[in-house]
Structures are given as C-alpha cells and as structure tokens.
C-alpha cells in the first residue's frame, strides 16, 4: 500500500478500533488475528465459522480511490450439500439476504457521516465460505492521501458507522436463516 503503512497494519488498526466500539455497546467480538500473523483464507473462514458469529466483517485497506467500498459475496452456483455438510464455495448462499441487509444499513451509516461509499458485489474469499451474515469493507483514504488511513479520527468515524449499522440490523442477524 505504501512504504510506511502496510495493509496488514492498517486493517489491524481499524479492527482494534471497531472492537473497542463494539465492546462499548456491549457486543462481544472475536478478532481473527490480533497481531502480525499470516493466516490462509481457509483458516480465516474456519475460525469465523466455528465461532458462529452474528456477522463476519472482513476489513481491507487500499490507497486507491477514496472512501469505503462495501462488498457482499458474489456466490457461485451452489455445489452439492449433504445434510450438515455444506458446499464450501457457496456456503454464504443461505445467508446472502441478511448480508445484503447489513450492507444496506452500513451504507446508510457511512453516508450519514459523509463518507463516500460504494456498495458492490465480488467473488471474494473467505466471504463465500462464511456461514453467517458477512460483509467486506475496503477502506480507502477519505480525501486521497494514504495518511488518512492512520488517522484516528477517520478510523473512529468508520468504527462508529460499522457498529451503528450492525446495531440497527441486529435483530435480523441473530435470527437464523
């Protein structure tokens, strides 16, 4: 991303900020990684699925463009599922409506805070493998400078938007599909 700020560091900073904000509102969180660890996509989805979360939020950072790109999964055609054994590549399919509701609420919260937001779909892993509501947030600089990504004010605004959006849709998230 830049010589001074790698994506791993930027996303961890956002995640820590979000955790603090969630906990302030009495919601427990589990971070897939707490430090400079390297996990495969399958490990990430395994950790998330075992925890049975109400929602999985995947954070990315980019120096390209501005504002927030909010993604829900573009799930491939479902493969064969047998009872408890769900097709891994399309595991998100049963949860996609809830994921989209969450994304709509998050977009509204970002807009309230005047953060430019685009709502998109993409065939992203591990999103496709998650068995709960799941969204990916790609955070780009607010005004165009990569230093925005390490600004505590910007991080706080984003964390507040995410938590407010999720609180709004909480009842739907807790209900199983």
């Amino acid at each position: 991303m830049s010589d001074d700020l790698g994506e791993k560091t930027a996303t961890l900073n956002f995640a820590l900020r979000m955790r603090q904000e969630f906990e302030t509102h009495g919601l427990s969180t589990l971070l897939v990684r707490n430090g400079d660890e390297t996990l495969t996509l399958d490990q990430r989805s395994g950790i998330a699925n075992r925890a049975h979360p109400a929602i999985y939020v995947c954070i990315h950072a980019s120096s390209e463009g501005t504002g927030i790109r909010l993604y829900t999964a573009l799930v491939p055609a479902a493969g064969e599922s047998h009872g408890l054994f769900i097709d891994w590549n399309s595991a998100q399919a049963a949860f996609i409506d809830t994921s989209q509701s969450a994304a709509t609420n998050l977009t509204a919260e970002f807009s309230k805070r005047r953060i430019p937001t685009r709502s998109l779909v993409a065939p992203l892993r591990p999103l496709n493998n998650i068995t709960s509501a799941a969204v990916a947030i790609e955070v780009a600089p607010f005004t165009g400078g990569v230093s925005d990504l390490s600004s505590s004010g910007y991080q706080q605004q984003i964390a507040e938007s995410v938590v407010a959006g999720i609180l709004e849709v909480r009842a739907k998230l807790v209900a199983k599909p």
Partner: protein
Amino acid sequence: MIPRHLIIGVAVMFVVALSTGAYVWHMQGSLAKSVPDADQTHPLPPPGNGPSEQVTLYVAHDDTGSLRPQSAQIPLSGGRQERAEQLVKTLLQLYLGESSPHPIAEGAEVRAVYLVDPGLAVVDLNTAFAEKHRSGILVEELTVASLVQTLSSNIPGINRIKFLVEGEERESLAGHADLSRFYDVAGVDRMISQMQTGQ
C-alpha cells in the same frame, strides 16, 4: 618393403580426409553468414494478420472504478482461439500504455488463451502479471472483469473463464480477486452492473 596397394590406399584416405576438412570449413563459414547478429533482427509482427475488425474492449477506469466499452479496430485471425488471444493482448497493450486508465505493471503478459468446450476459456497469465499487480479488491476485480467481459462479448459461446498463472492455479491475483474459481460470465455481468451503478 611396403606393398604398393597399401601406399595407394593411404594416399586416397589422406586426400579424402583433406577434402572433408576443406568442406566442413567451407560449410561453417556459410552458416555463420546466414545467422544475422542479434541487433539486426526485426521484431515479429504483432499477432493477428487477418483483416481488421471492429471489436469492443471493456476497459477498466480507476478514476471511476468502473468499466467503459471502447471500440477498437484490430486485425484478427480466423480461429476463435487466436482471436481470443489477440483481443486480450490488445487490451493489455492499452493497460501498459503511457496514458493507461488502469495501469498494469511492465512485463505483464497473457501467455495464452485456451478455448475448451463447452464454453470454457482458460487465460494463462505470466508471473509478472500477478506478482506486480496492484493490490486491492476493486483494482483486482476491475482487471478480472475487464478480461472476462472483453472475451465473452467478442467471442460467442464463452460462458466461464478460468485464470492460471504460468499454467498453474493460484489462490488470488494480488491477494484479493479469487483465481481459484471459475468466473461465470453471468455472475461477472452482475458484478459489472453494480460497479457501474454502485453509489
């Protein structure tokens, strides 16, 4: 005393050896003249030496984060596979140009496009294409969507596309766009329409 026939035999063999040596020396000289110096070679003509045809390239634009159709007149050969290769190579040249709307790193190449029935195209990228690609969800998905849409719109019958890097499967393009899957053209259409309209 040495028999006369032995002297004649040795003399004949000596003459044959001399003539063979002279012939080999002459042939080496001719061969050296026929191989031009490396700096005198001319680049191969660009792929596609058939008649020019109008095609639509779906070009990624980083400024808007979307694809825009762009007409181009390019020489295309007759075979579907060659046409597919010429299309993606033309698209890549555009991205490698100076005023590229979606810069791709120098050295990036599409090694080959294979059309596998029914409806599957396999695009083989080189290492530089993936290793030097800018990292990010949108920037990587723009590249993938642009290749998929350009191929499927100009080569009838393609409905799935698989990307390889140096002939092998790879988990992602540069950390985000999933290359382990087959890209379904209908799904990519949905992704593109969201790119065009996503607020």
